[in-house]
């Protein structure tokens, strides 16, 4: 999993049926200092996240399929599974 920041929204009418009724958000991957890296994902939102939120993102297919409890289980990878309140990193 990684920490990201929601930076945008995506609207698509024609899409894999797995994404029907779900919100797709653009998430920038952050480094440990909280700065955006060049990497991003279009992720499925499971926690009502919004633009500007710092979020916890899952990027693995099997894990993603476990929490998206709807058939057909299929082509899904990046999922927002939490909104980060606080992160503390030791020395």
């Amino acid at each position, binding site marked *: 999993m990684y920490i990201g920041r929601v930076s*945008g929204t995506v609207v698509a009418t024609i899409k894999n049926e797995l994404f029907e009724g779900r919100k797709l958000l653009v998430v920038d991957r952050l480094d440990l200092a909280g700065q955006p890296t060049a990497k991003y994902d279009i992720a499925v939102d499971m926690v009502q996240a919004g633009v500007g939120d710092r979020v916890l993102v899952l990027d693995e297919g099997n894990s993603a399929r476990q929490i998206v409890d709807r058939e057909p289980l299929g082509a899904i990878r990046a999922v927002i599974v939490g909104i980060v309140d606080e992160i503390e990193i030791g020395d």
Partner: protein
Amino acid sequence: MQFARVIGTLVATQKAEGLEGVKFLVVQPLDKHLQPEGEPQIAADGTAQAGPGELVFVIYSREAALALPEWFVPVDLAITGIVDEVDVV
């Protein structure tokens, strides 16, 4: 998933089992500001409706094999949606 722009089509008559009827498109991967990033790739069209010029989003690796009507066919990049609108800060 990441953004990509469809820039062409690919036809292969002779192909591996499971790829019959799968439409292949040439896509240019894009960054989040929709600027080209990296080399063009060949993607299977999981929407069956994408065409040249369109902005799409794609899924990589094993999950690409789940984006087509028949699962676990030999592909590693698939189009999973056609973008109507993007709003990125």
